[in-house]
């Protein structure tokens, strides 16, 4: 039975993906990742000397800063920072540069609707949805751009379970709001 999704995709179909590298000149590594209208920019600075107080100095440590699109930094942002930090720690080879800190800054941003005429400068905010997987993918691409040694590459995808029990991949904001369960899955592939 064909399940209708609001934007006409099939249940297993992802939104168009786009990635670009080296977009920021001052950062050691940077990348953007967009899935449909969700767009995330990640920047990597490091490795810098010294570790923070509670970190293990025998390994390279990571510091993640998550900047939301609008509003103050709240609990959801802190949770995303923690998840991203633990994911990045597991894919990087931490024994190569001990006693260093690498900062990863993630910023969710507006995506420009290309169909608007250039002089109107309207930033159209469409659906979000799948923000965390987008951020994981962007952070991994930024680490590659910076040349940080990685054991694996991390790829993340989000799926949601709707009321009728059907699983949809890569939900947009509207689908996320009505679904009963959202799951973000990160998989590492050997480099």
């Amino acid at each position, binding site marked *: 039975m064909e399940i209708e999704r609001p934007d006409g995709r099939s249940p297993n179909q992802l939104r168009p993906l786009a990635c670009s590298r080296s977009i920021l000149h001052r950062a050691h590594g940077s990348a953007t990742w967009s899935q449909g209208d969700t767009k995330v920019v990640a920047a990597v600075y490091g490795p810098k000397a010294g570790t923070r107080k509670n970190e293990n100095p025998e390994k390279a440590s990571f510091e993640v800063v998550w900047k939301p699109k609008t509003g103050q930094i709240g*609990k959801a942002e802190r949770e995303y920072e*923690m*998840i991203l930090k*633990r*994911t990045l720690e*597991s894919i990087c080879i931490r024994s190569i540069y001990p006693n260093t800190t690498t900062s990863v800054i993630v910023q969710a941003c507006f995506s420009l609707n290309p169909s608007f005429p250039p002089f109107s400068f309207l930033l159209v905010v469409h659906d979000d949805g799948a923000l965390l997987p987008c951020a994981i993918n962007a952070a991994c691409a930024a680490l590659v751009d910076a040349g940080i040694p990685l054991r694996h590459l991390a790829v993340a995808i989000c799926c949601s379970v709707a009321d009728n029990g059907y699983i949809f991949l890569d939900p947009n904001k509207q689908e996320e709001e009505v679904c009963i369960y959202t799951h973000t899955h990160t998989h590492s592939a050997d480099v």
Partner: protein
Amino acid sequence: MGFPDASKDLSSEMEVDAFRRLFPLKYFERHLAEAIRPDGRPLGKARDTTVVLGAVASANGSALVKIGSTTMLTAIKMEVMTPSLESPDEGCIAIDFHMPPICSPIVRPGRPAEAAPVISKQLSDTISSSGSIDLKELSLVTGKAAWMAYLDVYCLDADGALFDAALLSAVAALSHLQIPAVAMNDDGKIVLLSEDDGQKKAQEPVNKEKRNLTLRSIPFSLTCILHKNYILVDPTAEEESIMETVVTIALDTSGQLVSLYKPGGPVLAFTSAIQDCVALTRQRVKELKGILEEANSTMQVE
């Protein structure tokens, strides 16, 4: 570190405590090979759990929970508020988790702990998505007055498995919660009904007497650590700091999965490992349900 064989040479000469501090992973792996942990527990056994209801006498509902050394104190305070326009017949619950500096040497007075906002969000997500509380029960007068419950969980001692203890104490406090009796006075405002009957006869009681909140299905959780092929249940803070892969599973009393949380970590989440964790959680839910029911019946006797 760089010399993996150093520990073998030194282990026969060194004291146990020194070995535990210098080579923590090897110390633990020696124990895991014998299917035991340094505190003598088998791998699949959680620490001793106690629940005491009514620990804070001035709060509408409270509970003190200890899982091993991890101690959580929850208190619930109820206030009357105007409900929102989108849901005029529903009250509201605000859950917050605090880690004051008393709980751990890692938490400093000026700087909030990193784990605190994460666990706070996890708690509110788990309790709201488990569907155990019907917010319509917190409504007083549709569109005009409803209860706002402030649920604050304080960590008094952080020794691992913080989310499990926090969820258990929040749920225990909710089961102990007594919604106060209120009446509407002449100005249309809600006031608390006091024990003194004399002046209040003219008022219509909105809530005749104190009542409990009905909890539908109660969520309980279990945190496990995955390390190579081992699954360690209910880790202490020392175990959590050495072995980094943590999985938290929350099930409710009807056996439905409420949440599965695995934030990163070097060990991959194979289906078999997750299924084993779910089976361990099921056993733990039965234990915790028994402990909570016993605590509730002790309160009623008093």
